[in-house]
């Protein structure tokens, strides 16, 4: 393996990790992650506005993985996972960070990056319009996604999408998405 996926997460771990999950991102795993995070946010009495935003963004991040991840490369340690993904939620100063990681076929990288760049060069108003346009004009894809997940995340957080791709092997890259949900937005 050319780099350690997990180290990429733990290396950056400033802040209090409230959830870490790696493995198959199926419906049950999504339920468990959502329940656990919601319960923890309620337990610390997080203000409801922030709690809801974190929950919403987490739903979209997880379901992005569910709908879009490419099959794990041959030879990867976890072959049992059809939809392999990593999710970390942590409390940081002034908000929460939600990090996700998943394999993307290198041939799909350009398309995904173009989509993110389009979102990142848009103003908040433009993102709202883009959301409405996709909502009204794009059908739900064969994979079951609505094509709105990343746009929704950018809209709800008001932040640019912080991302990176790492080469995994000849055919695969690993995609990291690092979402920040501010306390005061």
């Amino acid at each position, binding site marked *: 393996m050319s780099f350690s996926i997990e180290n990429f997460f733990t290396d950056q771990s400033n802040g209090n990790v409230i959830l870490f999950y790696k493995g198959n991102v199926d419906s049950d795993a999504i339920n468990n992650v959502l329940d656990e995070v919601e319960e923890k946010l309620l337990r610390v009495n997080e203000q409801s506005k922030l709690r809801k935003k974190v929950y919403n963004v987490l739903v979209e991040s997880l379901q992005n993985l569910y*709908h879009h991840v490419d099959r794990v490369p041959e030879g990867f340690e976890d072959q049992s996972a059809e939809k392999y993904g990593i999710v970390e939620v942590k409390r940081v100063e002034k908000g929460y960070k939600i990090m996700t990681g998943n394999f993307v076929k290198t041939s799909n990288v350009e398309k995904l990056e173009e989509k993110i760049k389009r979102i990142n060069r848009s103003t908040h108003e433009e993102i709202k319009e883009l959301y409405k346009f996709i909502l009204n004009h794009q059908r739900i894809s064969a994979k079951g996604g*609505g094509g709105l997940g990343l746009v929704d995340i950018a809209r709800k957080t008001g932040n640019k999408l912080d991302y990176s791709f790492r080469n995994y092997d000849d055919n695969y890259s690993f995609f990291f998405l690092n979402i920040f949900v501010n306390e005061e937005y």
Partner: protein
Amino acid sequence: MEPIIIEGTPKTPTVRFDATEGIFEIKGRSIPENSVEFYKPLVDWLDSYRETPLDKTVVNIRLEYFNTSSSKCILDVFKKLEAIHKAKNEVEVNWYYEEDDEDMLEAGEDYESIIRVPFKMIEIVE
């Protein structure tokens, strides 16, 4: 017409569509992975209702969370209501949101701007 009555789950909303009263309600959380599967029967039901609707239909949407995949399905529901409204029947949508939930208010405003049916934004104050 038989009403639709669906109890809510942690990922799908409570639904009550009653054709004899003309009151339709979607309430709770709508965050399933496969939202089409959940909403298709509702959209089909509205297609039948559309043939002989009541003079007045009231729609109450009171969601705590919904995912983007549901957002498209909810739009499909509204499009059916728009058709009923266009055929000169009264349709009113009450969009509820909790007082600090600007995202939910904005979501309602998105629909209001796309769908030609009167919307009322109603803040829930605890």
